[in-house]
C-alpha cells in the first residue's frame, strides 16, 4: 500500500469513528427526550391527582360546615318561635291573674268593707272542697287578713255542709289569726313581692297535710291542665 491509500483508509476510519459517535449521541438525545417526557408526565400526573384530592376534601369540608351552619340557624329560628309561643301563652296567664284580683276585690267605702256576694259564696265552696280533700276532724285555716270577716261569716255553714256530705261530725276549724296569707297587691303593697288574690289554705292540725285552695294556686292548676288546649288553639293555625 502506498501512502495515499493508507491516508485514505485512515481518513475513512476517522470518519467512521466520528459517525458512530454522532449516531450514538443522537440516540442518546432521542432517548433523553423520551425519558424527559415520561418523567415529566408522571411527576405532573401524580401531583395533580394529589391536588385534586386535596381540593375535593376542602370542598367537602365547606359543604359540611355550610350544612351545620344552616342546621344551627334553623334550630335557632325554631327556638325563637317556640319561645314566642311560650311567652304569648304565659302572658295570657298573667292577664288571667290580673283579672283574678277583681274576683275578691273589696270595696272600701266609709271604712266598711263590702264584698262581692259571689266571692263570699266562692270562699264557702272552697272551704268545703278543702275539708273534703283533707277529711280531717280538726284543721287549721289560713286566709288573707282582709278576708277574715267573710271567712268567719261562712265558716259554720261550710262546716255543716261538709259534715252532711261525709256523714260525720262538723270538723273543728281554727282560723289562724296570727299568720295571714299575703294581701292583694295595691298601691301600698305593689305586687313585686308575694301576694294572694284570695281563697284559703287549709291544713291538718299537725300541719302534715295541706290543701292550697287560693285563687292563685287554682289558676296554676287550671293553667297547667288546660295548657295543651291553649297551645292547640294558638299553634293550630301556624304552618309548621
Amino acid at each position, binding site marked *: 500500500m502506498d501512502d495515499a491509500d*493508507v491516508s485514505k483508509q*485512515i481518513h475513512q*476510519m*476517522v470518519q467512521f*469513528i*466520528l459517525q*458512530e*459517535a*454522532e449516531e*450514538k*449521541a443522537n440516540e*442518546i438525545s432521542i432517548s*433523553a*427526550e423520551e*425519558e*424527559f*417526557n415520561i*418523567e*415529566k408526565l408522571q*411527576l*405532573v400526573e401524580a*401531583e*395533580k391527582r394529589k*391536588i385534586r384530592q386535596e*381540593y375535593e376534601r*376542602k*370542598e367537602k369540608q*365547606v359543604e359540611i360546615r355550610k350544612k351545620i*351552619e*344552616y342546621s344551627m*340557624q334553623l334550630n335557632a*329560628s325554631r327556638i325563637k*318561635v317556640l319561645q*314566642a309561643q311560650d311567652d*304569648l*301563652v304565659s302572658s*295570657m296567664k298573667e*292577664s*288571667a291573674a290580673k*283579672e283574678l284580683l277583681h*274576683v275578691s276585690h273589696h270595696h272600701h267605702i266609709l271604712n266598711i268593707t263590702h264584698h262581692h256576694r259571689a266571692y263570699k259564696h*266562692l270562699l264557702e*265552696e*272552697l272551704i*268545703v*272542697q278543702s275539708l*273534703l280533700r283533707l277529711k280531717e276532724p280538726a284543721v287549721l285555716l289560713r286566709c288573707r287578713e282582709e278576708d277574715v270577716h267573710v271567712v268567719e261569716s261562712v265558716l259554720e255553714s261550710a262546716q255543716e*255542709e261538709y259534715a252532711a256530705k261525709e256523714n260525720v261530725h262538723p270538723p273543728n276549724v281554727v282560723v289562724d289569726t296570727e299568720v295571714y296569707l299575703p294581701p292583694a297587691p295595691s298601691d301600698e303593697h305593689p305586687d313585686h313581692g308575694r301576694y294572694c288574690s284570695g281563697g284559703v289554705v287549709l291544713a291538718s292540725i299537725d300541719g302534715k297535710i295541706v290543701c292550697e285552695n287560693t285563687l292563685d294556686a*287554682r*289558676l296554676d*292548676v*287550671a293553667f297547667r*291542665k*288546660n295548657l295543651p288546649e*291553649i297551645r292547640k*288553639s*294558638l299553634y293550630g*293555625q*301556624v*304552618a309548621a
Partner: protein
Amino acid sequence: MDTRQSGIQQLLAAEQEAQRIVNEARNAKMARLKQAKEEAEKEVAAYRAQMEAEFQRKLAQSSGDSGANVKRLEQETEEKIEHLKSQAENISHDVVQMLLKHVTTVKN
C-alpha cells in the same frame, strides 16, 4: 514524517473526539432530565393556582347563597311570630275567661 505514526495519532484524536461527542450527549441528557423535574413543578404550580382560584370562586358564590338563605329564614321566622301574636290576640280573651271560670267554679 512517519505516516503510520501520524495515522495512529489521527485515529486516537478521532476516538477522543468521539468520546467527547458521546459525553456531551450524555451530559445534555442529564440536564434534560433535571429539567423534567423543574418543568413538572411549574406545571403543577400552575394547576394548583387554577384549582385554588376555582375553589375561591365557588366559596364566594356559596357564601352569597348562604347569606340569602339566612335572610329568608329570618323573614319566615318573623312572619311566623307575627302570625302567632295576632292569633294570640284573637284567643286571649276567651282563654282568660276560661281560666277564670275554672278558678271560680267549685264542684263539690
